[in-house]
């Protein structure tokens, strides 16, 4: 049993090896996946706004309607099967899937699983020793309980080292190779799809609806009392605020995607220098989380803001 002391020495050496901490990458993956789910919510809002826009146009015309007039509206809704054709969905899904896979990879081969496997190995060795003693009708051990534990610990440690090495290597290669794609996809989601299409259309569609309320008010203004007019204007003002804030969610989504792109870029540069953990990485991930939390806060802000929601360069989305 000379192998045991040799392996114990190996444990000591391996325990001193530098581990590759992948916790930051896990945190990045979780935060980035959260951002893509928020972008999904923006797309969903855009869908609803399109349906509402059709109903607004119908309500503003003097036509009479029957059930079949609702059929074209059904076609506006982007169904699950259609989603696969939409650039925004495809891009966002690719980004979300990538973020989740990074997080999963960063957690692969957990210490707990390896420790459990080592424990099972130790038990099996002890079992084998007992079987040996029964067969040989002897009291002397083939492998002592202490040595069974040592052997399994050595195998677990070697495996852990191997797992960490393999995990770090895979993460580094994948993240560096993915960075150009992440930046291109992020830019297109941000510039073309969110800013170029959704933001402008949301604002305009809300404006279509608002014009209807102004028209109603204007046609009655001669006949109504001050109190009624004030009440109507209060209601219109609420809708006006909703219109202004509709684009705020898109701006927030843009800030979120930009923070993911920046964090990925920082992660790539640090990994090129073999750094899996640094203040820069930590700060960039913290920024994604802050922007992400702001996104949640925004929903509350939109409900509670009684004045105007604006995008401030320094303060982000605020109630003016």
């Amino acid at each position, binding site marked *: 049993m000379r192998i045991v002391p040799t392996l114990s020495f190996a444990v000591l050496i391996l325990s001193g090896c530098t581990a590759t901490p992948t916790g930051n990458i896990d945190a990045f993956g979780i935060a980035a996946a959260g951002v893509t789910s928020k972008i999904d919510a923006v797309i969903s809002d855009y869908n609803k706004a399109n349906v509402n826009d059709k109903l607004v146009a119908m309500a503003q015309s003097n036509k009479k309607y029957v059930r079949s007039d609702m059929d074209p509206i059904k076609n506006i809704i982007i169904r699950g099967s259609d989603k696969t054709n939409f650039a925004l969905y495809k891009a966002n899904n690719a980004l979300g899937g990538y973020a989740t896979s990074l997080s999963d990879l960063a957690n692969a081969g957990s210490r707990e699983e390896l420790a459990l496997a080592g424990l099972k190995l130790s038990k099996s060795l002890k079992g084998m020793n007992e079987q040996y003693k029964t067969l040989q009708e002897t009291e002397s051990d083939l492998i002592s309980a202490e040595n069974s534990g040592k052997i399994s610990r050595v195998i677990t440690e070697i495996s852990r080292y191997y797992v960490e090495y393999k995990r770090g290597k895979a993460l580094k290669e994948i993240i560096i190779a993915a960075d150009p794609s992440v930046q291109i996809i992020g830019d297109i989601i941000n510039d073309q799809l969110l800013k170029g299409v959704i933001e402008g259309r949301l604002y305009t569609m809300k*404006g279509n609806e608002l014009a209807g309320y102004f028209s109603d008010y204007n046609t009655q203004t001669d006949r109504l009392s001050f109190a009624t007019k004030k009440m109507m204007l209060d209601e219109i003002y609420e809708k006006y605020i909703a219109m202004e804030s509709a684009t705020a969610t898109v701006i927030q989504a843009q800030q979120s995607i930009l923070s993911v792109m920046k964090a990925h870029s920082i992660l790539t540069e640090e990994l090129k220098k073999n750094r899996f953990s640094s203040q820069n990485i930590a700060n960039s991930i913290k920024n994604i989380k802050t922007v992400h939390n702001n996104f949640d806060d925004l929903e509350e802000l939109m409900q509670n803001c009684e004045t105007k929601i604006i995008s401030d360069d320094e303060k982000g989305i605020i109630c003016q």
Partner: protein
Amino acid sequence: MSKLCKLSELNKAINALNNLWPLLEGDQQSDVRRERDKLNILASELAHKTLLENTPELMAAIDQLNLLTQAAKDAKQSIDDVSKRINQVAKTIKKASSAAVKVARLL
């Protein structure tokens, strides 16, 4: 003019008409609103088309990212297999030693 510029111009025109038609009355109002509706349909279709548009640059980036996502999944699988292999060794030892006892009893 690019699609995004065209869309932006259409939205601006619709917004301008929305600031006009509620002030008008009768046929005048209906005419302007109809014009707004026409532009709105054009804008809606253009927006839809833009969202559907898959530029070669975007498609290449998505394909590349999907490939790397699969690589990450494969790497995870292969790493997870390490603990499975240790478990397998433990199971084999257990089976082998129990089989050895059974054989010994027969001899």
